[in-house]
């Protein structure tokens, strides 16, 4: 029975170990989509702006592409716009999913910050965004020719992220 008296200390040591490791590896606040490595869910979105064709899962056949989740009301999306143009110039096909947006606002956004998109789907109630496992705007997914998600990028794409995304596109070919 004597060893039982050490039990509280052992339990406490366990708690300290868990907490200590939690301190050493601060929790990342990103929540990854469960769908990375899995095919995209079925979806078919109406066109976000008259100037661009609509976006459906069936349109994604062919080569790898980048699906960019954005909105005209989202400030980081405007910040990330130049990097999307860089990716486009590097030959990446980019499709947009506009979240809770209006055609006239979208057109103004594209006119002001540049237009890297080949197709833009309008996700008026975030249903497709949620189905993709995205938790906010902007977010980008690298999808291969068979519709499988290869990479999820949370937050705006910065200059230093470009090589990672190009590599993922290359690997998905």
């Amino acid at each position, binding site marked *: 029975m*004597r060893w039982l*008296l*050490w039990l*509280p*200390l052992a339990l*406490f*040591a366990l*708690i*300290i170990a*868990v*907490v*200590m*490791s*939690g*301190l*050493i*590896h*601060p*929790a990342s*606040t990103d*929540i990854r989509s469960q769908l990375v490595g899995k095919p995209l869910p079925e979806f078919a979105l109406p066109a976000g702006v008259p100037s661009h064709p609509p976006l459906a899962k069936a349109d994604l056949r062919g080569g790898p592409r980048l699906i960019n989740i954005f909105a005209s009301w989202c400030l980081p999306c405007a910040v990330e716009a130049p990097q999307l143009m860089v990716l486009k110039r590097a030959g990446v096909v980019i499709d947009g999913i506009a979240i809770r947006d209006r055609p006239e606002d979208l057109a103004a956004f594209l006119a002001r910050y540049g237009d890297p998109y080949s197709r833009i789907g309008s996700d008026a109630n975030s249903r497709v965004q949620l189905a993709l496992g995205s938790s906010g705007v902007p977010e980008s997914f690298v999808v291969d020719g068979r519709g499988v998600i290869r990479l999820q990028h949370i937050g705006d794409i910065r200059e230093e992220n470009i090589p990672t995304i190009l590599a993922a596109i290359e690997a998905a070919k």
Partner: protein
Amino acid sequence: MIAEAGLAALWLAAALALLQLGLGALALRGHAALGPAVRPVAVVQGALVALAFALLILVFLRSDMSVALVVENSHSAKPWLYKFAGTWGNHEGSMLMWVTILGLGGAAVALLERRLDQRTAIATLAAQAAIGLGFYAFLLFASNPFARISPAPADGHGLNPLLQDPGLAFHPPTLYLGYVGLSIAFSYAVGALITGQVGPTLARAMRPWVLGAWILLTLGITAGSYWAYYELGWGGWWFWDPVENASLMPWLAATALLHSVTVLATRAALRAWTVMLAVVAFSMSMIGTFLVRSGILTSVHAFAVDPRRGSFILVLLAIYIGGALALFALRASSVREGAPFEPVSREGALVINNLLFSAILGIVLTGTLYPLAVETMTGEKLSVGAPYFDATAGPLALALVVVMAAGPLLRWRRDELKALAVRLAIPAAVAIVAIAVVFLLLPVAGVLPRLGLIFAAGIAIASVAPLAGRNLRRTPLHIWGMVIAHFGIAVSLAGMASESAFTRETLVAARPGETLAVGPWSVRFVGVEPVAGPNWTAIRAKLEARRGDTLLTLAPEARMFNAPPTETTESAIATRPTGQLYTVLGKSDGDGRWQLRLWWKPMVTLIWAGGALVAIGGALALLGRLRRERRREAM
């Protein structure tokens, strides 16, 4: 100069804590002549740290923008009450408040403690100084509240607007006082382990502190629950949020300790267990404070994340708790066995009470730390919420209230089940009537709310049963305290069950002029108007709620604070004898419609009224015990 004087006082207090520990250790190791010096040192230490804290308050009241802490957390345009409360509405200030209360607690023990033998008293004060020393080091080396900033900016960065609430002025101090009360119980336990004097005298010395701490924790949790209820605007009263759990865990341990300390004081039983609980109760306060302050748990109560400070507190925790538990493991086997008792007895019921409280504590601790453990091991993110806690802690809590009904009706040492059944006959009959009422008349959903209502009815009666056959005028105050506290639990349980069973909710986008229905009320949305406050602007809605002849006007707001820019919702709540109408104004859809959330919550106020009754019961018991002790001393 004020800030420098504060820092100097803090250094002096730290030096005295070191002296107090050193003198205590020497006195226990044979230099008994040094013993009498320990108490005065403890008193002066308490006075100096209180001075440091008073000076920090002064710096905040004067909006001295050359002090970094004031710049970060205050603003000259803030109402004075919030400047005052802002002193501890931040990390450094709240830690200084912590050690201040710790130092004053030690001084109080030095002045008041006369029951214990000299050696145990010295060991207790030395342990209290050791705890203080760690936190002084933390303040002086890792979070100096008096640090200057140069050049001094013109004005400060404000205070988190969510915290700009009168509740803030009293919530943290209440909880801290509770935690420090438990630190004294901890020091008593450590002192008694060192000298081996674990017995009824220790329990009687410890009891007022445990009781006082427990009253304050009860008030703190009750007030915190109400604060979250009306301030967050989510309509719930308990979210199983890590910060709430952090305040609940010490309360659970303290409640168990409160009951086991009674067994030790009255019957000299449960010796090692009581000492263990005293260690656990304060450990839970420190672990709770650490989890909240280090920011390693994600919570609605966002505090600054700083891994360096977190590591510092964690090391302190490991030393104090680990040290005390190691001491327990080494010395507990030398603690004498207590007086024997039969399973069916007051002691037996209190043992079950302790086991159930410990089990609930284990459940809450596991649920709070589980996401952290999983993320550490697998990198996977998950959150543990109400479904886990309700399903695991709920049934145990109901079992606990059954024991609560029976325990006070049992005799010490041994009793008969048959006799207990007779004493419980009336409460059981009431519960049976309640079963019939709940199942036949009320459209209640869910097992727990139904059981909650039934049990509440039964224990409301059972809790006053100990008064049966007594001369009420001659009933000791601590018995009244117990009865009222137990009755308060029944009241609170009734409120919780009623809230979850009968709440009606309406969530709509409405245009001015529309009339909405929620429960028995019809609510007319009159319109919105802009209003301006001292450091915020707001959109205020006007709602007219009608039920029969009653007409109420409610004005929920959506507020925008300007420093720092933050939006908050100010719910408007109308309290009626039968419940609360809770209204929240959301966003405009830009099309002339506004989001409105309306709840009708029957009997919800009983939750906090019950909490207040529990605390009042505790206060009566404390008063009764203290009077009794004084009479004993006089004899």
